[in-house]
């Protein structure tokens, strides 16, 4: 898991059924659910009582060996239990439909953030060109409109606390919107099956105050990393760019090879050749990972060309050098 801040617990906060409702439109889901739930429980109890009574009253006993009266038709009864459920479900349909429209049609003033789903990670592009992986930072009390697309297979952006979910389809945009009612970190799941890492494709929505949001935008933007020494920049990028999702720094192999003690070592590639791990090899493996895949690993690393500028690549290389 990317060690972005830990999301709030879903299971205990909130009512018996739902996680805590954070977005303004979450009540649409909770109210209709509870209405149907209680209507069903009442109807279920009625049926249980009726069946229980019949089973008790008309069970087969030596004197009750054949049915005395064969009531096979009762129009009034038949009409009631056709029309009443019909009216009830049409009412539920309308309630669900109008709630749905409020949940999915974003208000005009929503600020837009682009979401790209890729095999087993979320990438967010902010209006000022800022990028973050696995962590969506949004201001509180402002409607946010996410315009989403996938780069490989179907994914689905699902935030239980906001009650939002929509599939990401390659070569097409789909959108959702939400407005957080309070700050906090909230869990993101991928809900559409997308392969081995489907259950690892998690993220966090970090809802912060508006001022903090502006500070974060400036502070973590490309320009802000001038003054930071290279290896510290590399260490910060290791988490913010999501490298830690696949590469560990403690020597244990994950989806990708570990970075510990990698610098200067010779690696045998899947193609059998051996190559010395130096600046050029690391740079090339970031920009075009599938060129020289280390033996024993799947070529699943997405190309970071365009996602990392030269200074950031140099920073990461310095950080890797430091990891003896």
């Amino acid at each position, binding site marked *: 898991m990317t060690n972005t801040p830990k999301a709030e617990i879903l299971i205990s906060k909130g009512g018996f059924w739902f996680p805590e409702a954070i977005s303004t439109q979450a009540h649409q889901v909770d109210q209709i659910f509870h209405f149907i739930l209680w209507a069903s429980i009442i109807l279920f109890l009625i049926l249980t009582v009726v069946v229980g009574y019949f089973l008790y009253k*008309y069970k087969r006993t030596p004197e009750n060996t*054949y*049915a005395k009266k064969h009531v*096979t038709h009762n129009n009034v009864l038949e009409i009631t239990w056709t029309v009443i459920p019909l009216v009830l479900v049409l009412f539920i349909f309308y309630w669900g*439909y109008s709630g*749905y429209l409020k949940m999915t049609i974003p208000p005009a003033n929503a600020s837009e953030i682009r979401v790209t789903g890729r095999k087993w990670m979320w990438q967010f592009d902010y209006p000022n060109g800022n990028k973050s992986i696995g962590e969506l930072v949004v201001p509180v009390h402002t409607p946010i409109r996410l315009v989403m697309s996938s780069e490989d297979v179907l994914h689905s952006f699902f935030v239980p606390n906001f009650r939002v*979910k929509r599939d990401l389809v390659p070569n097409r945009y789909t959108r959702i919107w939400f407005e957080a009612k309070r700050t906090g970190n909230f869990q993101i799941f991928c809900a559409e099956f997308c*392969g081995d890492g489907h259950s690892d494709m998690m993220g966090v929505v970090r809802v912060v105050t508006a001022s903090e949001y502006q500070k974060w935008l400036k502070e973590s933007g490309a320009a802000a990393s001038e003054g930071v020494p290279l290896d510290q920049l590399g260490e910060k990028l290791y988490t913010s760019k999501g490298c830690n999702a696949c590469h560990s720094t403690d020597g244990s192999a994950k989806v990708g090879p570990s970075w510990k003690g990698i610098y200067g070592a010779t690696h045998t590639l899947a193609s059998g050749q051996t190559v010395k791990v130096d600046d050029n090899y690391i740079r090339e493996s970031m920009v075009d990972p599938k060129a020289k895949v280390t033996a024993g690993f799947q070529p699943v690393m997405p190309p970071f060309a365009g996602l990392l500028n030269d200074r950031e690549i140099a920073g990461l290389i310095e950080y890797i050098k430091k990891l003896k």
Partner: protein
Amino acid sequence: MSESAPVKDNYLNSPKGIWSWIYTLDHKRIGIMYLAAISVAFILGGIFALLLRLEHLNPGPLLFTAKQYNQLFTLHGAIMVFLFIVPSIPASLGNFILPMQLGAKDVAFPRLNLTSYYIYLIGAIFCIYSMIAGAADTGWTFYTPYSSTTDTSVISMTLGAFILGFSSILTGINFLVTIHKMRAPGMSWFKMPLFIWALYATAIIQVLATPVLAITLLLLVLERTMNIGIFNPALGGDPVLFEHFFWFYSHPAVYIMILPAMGVISELITAFCKRDIFGYKLVAYSSIAIAIIAFLVWGHHLFVSGQSDAANSIFSLLTFLVGIPSGIKVFNWIATMYKGTIDFKTPFLYALSFLALFCIGGFTGIMLGALSFDVFAHDTYFVVAHFHYVMMGGVVMAFLGGLHYWWPKMFGKMYSEFWGRIACALIFIGFNMVFFTQFILGSKGMPRRYFNYLDQYQPLHAFSTYGSWVLGLGLLLVLIYLIDSLVDGKPAPANPWGALTLEWQTDSPPITENFTHTPEVHHGPYAFDKVKPS
């Protein structure tokens, strides 16, 4: 075999030898062969289910890697749907009982019936080959573009399902023509048992929906081999179109599964209350209504897949309409118990648990039909629990009920009533332990098809796993005592339950020709008032 009476020759032993079974044209033998095949599939699917639940005891990898887990739930889904539950009631119980309840000697096309059985076996071989050669890991829904790009053996699994589709179509055609043309003299449409009405509605869906599954899977195979691009977004295709194609079959398919179950329940409740069904015409027409509305609602699987909101709203409206006929049936069954003489034999216990579990499945279906809730609950464990309540709670309960009800007729042996009740109780309790907790898991936001999950869900998952052991034990018990009844069960009388439908008028197990003389029908199938029982 208790040798009290000299064993009369019946369909089981009259033509002797293995070849007489392999080349049999007798619908009863084909029904038994189907029963054996789908039981093996059910056991296999059940083992995969137990492994899945075991894996979920705690979050981290316990027995499998992520890929193996994905392959496992794909196999569980595909085997249960294509190999067990679609053919379960129509092909095994239906093949055996339908001609007898119609008073016919056999189905309309016996050779076609045997061909559809062997097509089923060939399809099963394809699925087993896929299992061995790196099973598909796409989920039983095979959504593109993942299914067209993954390196697992998706082609052999899709070809397996493609072939199984034809077995289902041929059974459907056979039943359609048999019901139209082979009824006993005097049996008008409204003197047919309700099990036949349900199989008629099922046959309509089988013939009209399964070919679209065939073309979908064929296109998927062509997508993987020739890259024709219809479902490949990079070439201009549309993966959501695949979802339309797939669910155009798969939603009517869930009605292929539930309708015969409803037919069995109509038989069980009337037989064990010894009372005419309440509102015969309504129950019959609601089967046909379900069969037709089934084709209008598939879009509720695509609510969050990027479908247009116009389609979302219309599909949501129609989804609610499909709930009404099911409601009518449940109310009519309960009304049938009024003033009956209720006998608590095992089949009736399964019918009662069907009523309870199918109602819960139906109510949660109404919830999932509402657009706003489905946006939250789609692809979570709430949906997993819903469809297991309807499929396992509905179809499997009715299948077990029907199996026990017709067991004396099929094998001439009585099963042990004592063990039957214990097994039914175990299954009911175990089932609710497994799947009611999954409702709560789902509403807490736990997505489905997750290999490892957040630690906070661990207690619920563990409880669900314990429940799966109880359920597994219950089903194992059923297997044991049914097989035991074959060996030393008491010989069964011709009509152990005193029911009036035609299959009970001949002796059990019946002779190959079913009836010594073609029966005449003068009254309805459940006219207990006209026939004063002894």
